[in-house]
């Protein structure tokens, strides 16, 4: 697969207007490099930036963690279970 699958949840899905998208990358990048591409395409996400967490392949990740083509990235607003 030539890109990263991006899933959005809760308020982030609302702000972006989509629940799933794909960001094309052809080499390994960091989450920090992926974010501006995503935010550029879905500017509604921008004001949420400081509240968002991210997961790579189902585990919480930091902005300097690596993302490779074929990975699944999730955009996670503040959780509110319970």
């Amino acid at each position, binding site marked *: 697969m030539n890109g990263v699958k991006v899933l959005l949840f*809760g308020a982030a899905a609302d702000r972006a207007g989509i629940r799933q998208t794909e960001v094309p990358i052809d080499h390994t990048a960091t989450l920090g490099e992926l974010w501006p591409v995503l935010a550029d395409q879905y500017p509604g996400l921008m004001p949420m930036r400081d509240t968002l967490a991210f997961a790579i392949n189902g585990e919480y990740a930091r902005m300097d963690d690596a993302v490779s083509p074929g990975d699944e990235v999730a955009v996670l607003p503040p959780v509110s279970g319970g």
Partner: protein
Amino acid sequence: MFRLVEEPIDVGTLITSAFRPDCGAVATFVGTTRIDESSGASVEYLEYEAYRPMADRKLEEIGAEIGERWEVGHVSIVHRLGRVDPGEPSVVIVVASPRRSPAFEASRYAIERIKEIVPIWKREVWSDGYVWVGSQVGTRMLAK
């Protein structure tokens, strides 16, 4: 037993399945949908969504953390997804332990950790729109 479910939770069965002859204390926490009132409108129901299977795995991690920190004989966590009506349980935590202190502490730990690390989100659906709890994003006038 750690589960995300779409249907109502049978609290009684969940608790009685935790009874064991080597455990004298069973502490349970049930989170139910609470109704707030604000400016004439009211919450009609809650709606939960989760990032699966990450959320399932995080519930199991909380169970493992509890097993490392306290002497427990049984831990169950069940969380609802989808629509949950007022007064219905959205989450049920059951901990059995030989003694009561670990049971109380572990059940409280479980709900705090759920609210910290499990990728579940709820929105309040009001008579005049909805709001994602914690994000203040939604379709209600007040949310904007």
